[in-house]
């Protein structure tokens, strides 16, 4: 009885409107926090990958294809040795023909 009156009351409707406004603001803020955190994490990972690629390109430029393959094999061997599970980084080379 009292609960039904409470839910019908103008005070409650006003409270709902404020919850709506406040909730929308909170959602917007947290979405921003989420998106920027995710973007930051991804960008950091991408930078690490790009750095690795730059190193390998340097190896290729200085030692050619065979040097690159050796470097890749060396890396793969070291990584697999160090971590049992999935290797953190994979680099590999494929012939242009496919």
């Amino acid at each position, binding site marked *: 009885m*009292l609960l039904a009156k409470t839910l019908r009351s103008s005070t409650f409707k006003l409270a709902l409107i404020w919850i709506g406004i406040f909730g929308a603001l909170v959602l917007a803020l947290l979405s921003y926090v989420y998106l920027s955190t995710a973007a930051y994490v991804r960008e950091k990972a991408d930078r*690490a990958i790009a750095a690795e690629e730059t190193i390998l390109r340097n190896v290729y430029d200085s030692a050619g294809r065979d040097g690159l393959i050796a470097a890749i094999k060396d890396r793969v061997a070291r990584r697999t040795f160090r971590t049992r599970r999935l290797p953190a980084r994979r*680099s*590999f080379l494929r012939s242009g023909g496919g």
Partner: protein
Amino acid sequence: MAGNLKAWPAALKESKGWYDVDTREWKPDAADHSVLRATFDTLPDGYHLLVGRNADDLDAFTRKIEVALLLGVTLIFVLAGVASVSVTRRTVGRIEAINATSRSIMQSGLGKRIPLRGTRDEWDQLAENLNSMLDRVEALMAEVKQVSDNVAHDLRTPLTRMRGRLEKAYNRPHNSDYDHALIGDTMADLDAVLRMFYSLTRISQIETGDRTSAFGTVNLAEIASEVVELFDAAAEDKRVHLDAVVDRHVLVTGDRDLLFDAVANLVDNAIKYGGEAGRVTVEVARHDDSAVIAVVDDGPGIPDDECHHVFKRFYRLQRSRHTPGNGLGLSLVAAVARLHGARIEMVDNRPGLKCRLRFPSPAMA
């Protein structure tokens, strides 16, 4: 083909770029699949170089943030919902108490009051104010009821008397002398009834109508002298010594006619109830911050416990019920005093009574 991928991902068709590759693309039979974040490029000699890393930890991290934020938002909404329901419920509960009280007042009369919670908050203040308003309304209703009861009661006596007289005249043979006396008595009774109605309407006019626009500067000394002059003959009849002791100029702001009536009523009462061969004095004096007019007698006075009742309409002291009067004189005085913002003081004069009207901040002479 070199490195730790068993097959080139089929999705990579361009010559360079960034890509998210599902491990199932080259290992369809793998039990657990993960995502590879990779960049690939075409080397000058036609070979492709792909550098990537497992993005599972990234996804796990963002998913953790996602879950935390979602939980937080949900918690905020739930808390806000619960808080608004409980706060609103409390407010609605208090309003409902007021509603219930007003409904029961409409049904069963003015006896009910809104319950207080003793929290001294705005709701308690509202309830207190409404309750005191109800008290006031109840008192006014009681007063109206008492006045109408009294009117009925006071009318019955003269009307019964007149009817008896007329009945007697109707039943006996006409006799012009007797009829003359009878008509005279009846007219006197009717005059008393009319006087009562006149006083009643005048009091309520004073109490309700705004007459302050008709206010002017009035000399209380002048009023006192005129009243003494008016009642000189009446005082002589009762062998009462009536005089006035006045400062020359005591000015107040007010309605001259009403003030005259009020003082006249006080003097009339003093002569009527002050006793035979007594002494009645009208004193007018100016004090620093007030002007005072007082009517002093040396009669029996008024008992302390009845002092407050004498200003009610139709109230009459027990011992004066047999004397003529309608109990409206002091009500008129009280109404006039209220209109002028004056204070009425009843002081025991040992013996007798001193009735003072104290007017605030007199007009400058």
